[in-house]
């Protein structure tokens, strides 16, 4: 049973309808993309660049919201705000939560 906090099944079934046969392809694209986004976030944190953090989080937020990944979306928004504020002291913690949230989503998508 998937926790709707991780993945909104209604949105997912809508996507299935829109994408038809290409739904599996979309999932693959999302997974590949997410790996790239997560490493972008980590890179930005390593170089202590708040704006890079903001952009990476923003981008991940977009695709996460499209997939109906609610918790992941919210965490990305939070990180985006932190990046925007310029003070990224708490960013590390959020980033770890993002990685965790994504692992749930990945598992749920199968």
């Amino acid at each position, binding site marked *: 049973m998937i926790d709707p906090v991780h993945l909104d099944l209604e949105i997912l079934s*809508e*996507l299935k309808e*829109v*994408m*038809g046969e*290409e739904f599996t*392809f*979309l999932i693959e*694209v*999302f997974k*590949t*993309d997410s790996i790239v986004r997560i490493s972008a976030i980590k890179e930005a944190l390593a170089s202590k660049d708040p704006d890079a953090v903001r*952009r990476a989080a*923003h*981008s991940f*937020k*977009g*695709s996460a*919201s*499209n*997939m109906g990944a609610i918790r992941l979306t919210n965490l990305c928004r939070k990180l985006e705000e932190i990046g925007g504020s310029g003070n990224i002291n708490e960013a590390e913690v959020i980033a770890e939560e993002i990685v965790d949230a994504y692992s749930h989503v990945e598992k749920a998508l199968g």
Partner: protein
Amino acid sequence: MGKVLNYFPSPAKILIVDSNSSERCLLKRFFLEHSYIVVDAASGRDALTSFKKHRPDIVLLDLLMSDISGFDVAVRIKALAGDDFIPIVFLTSLQDERSLVRCVEVGDDFLAKPYSQIVLQAKINSLINMRNMQLTLINQRDEITNYNHDLLQQQDVAKRVFDRIAHAGVLGADNIKYHLSPLSIFNGDVMLAGVSPTGNLVVFLGDFTGHGLHAAIGSMPLAQTFYTMLKKGFSLREIVREINITLCEILPVDLFCCAFIAEINFNNCHLRVWNAGLPDCVIYRSSTREVVKLASNHIPMGINETLNFDATVRVYEIEPGDRLYVWSDGIHEAQNSRGDMFGEDRLMDVFACNSRVENLFEEINTAVDHFIGDSAAEDDVSLLEITMIKADLFKLDKRAALNSDGLGLKDWRMRLELRPETLKSFDPLPLLLHILMNVPHLQPYGGQVYTVISELYSNSLEHGVLGLDSAVKLSSVGFTEYYQHREASLAKLSKGYVIIDLDYSGNEEGGDLKIIIEDSGVGFDYQQMLCEDAFKNQFSGRGIHLIRSLSQSLHYAGSGNKAYATFVWSD
């Protein structure tokens, strides 16, 4: 023209620009599902390349991209699109007002992530509709531009065709000055000048109602009728009647032609004028500086098939040096920047202030130009000046003889007896002239021969058959009276005749035409003609002096009712 333009490229092509591949994938799928042609790009740079290559109808643009910002991409795409309206919709999850306002300033709309499919589709559809509307407008604008270009070209062709007809005339003669606006034909003005076989100069100024092509419609048949009939020797009355009938037939009810026509006989110094609806024209007497106004006294041409020409034509005696000025209302209505019209008073002031008559024509033009000033009003002025000169100075190039191949009437005789019913209503001179024009090599002398026959014929008809007294003609008032009297007597005519007998023989070197004209009248005391002094005073009304100067011999027989003239020509 006539090509069906497809304004709506269907289906629409959409360019999706998003650095996030799952977003791109999703949007791509969505639009393919809705029958769009989809191209996509993952970066700002790719977007510009793809735009140039595919020229999409609409662009979906991610705002945050790593290489070039969405705003910058949008500015460049708009520049590439130029006049073409290619809507740009920003894809953004940004919420701040400034960014959203900027989206609408730089692009055309924005979509907030996550998208609602219904809103997405509605926005794209409405923007595509806007684009199609704009394409339609641009295409219509181009069509109008092309149409206008075509129209100007057609006008130019029409103008050149018309110029060829109108300029077959003699507006270039030394004693004529004229000013016509370059597109006068489309202002409805027509100016014609020609010479009759008798050597009279006939000028015509017409002003059709309205402007543009419909004002020009009547000009062509008018000019053609004028020149053809004039060349064939028809009288002014018949030319005017024919033009009027033609115009009545072809013009719609609300279109007509104000006209002024003048015939100048340089031999006997008579000017006949007829004004049907043009403003007062003017004879300017060089010796007395008197301005004689020639007012309109007839309804314009093309309104009523029946004309009252004889009662409204006016005859004036003129002297060499006198000038005739003819204009349409373009001069009177010339406006300055304040909207005032030049008007008749200012026109008359130019005459009053003139000191050297040779400059008057230029003075009128200058006065109008000064008055109009910089108001940049379209030149709509038609002005004509004719100077009276001595007959021998009015010479035009003799046209090459038409029958130069030597074929035609070389040796012949004809006798034409005209009885009352014919005399009343038919002018035999054009018919005779037509016959004479078929005599080889005689054409260059057509004017002289015509004058001799026409003078003898009118003597026979007016003094012989109708019994009119030529002495009445001596004053200018009497002149008009005379012609009114002539008309009345002709209408009542029930007996009498005129016989015209022509006998010709000739070869390449020359020929000899005997003209015998006999009438049913009582004749006149031709013996007295032998006395030079008496003849000058008493018989000038019969044009005998003129006939003598043109023919080799003239004598009378019987009671004076039979005239013999010979016309001899040689190369």
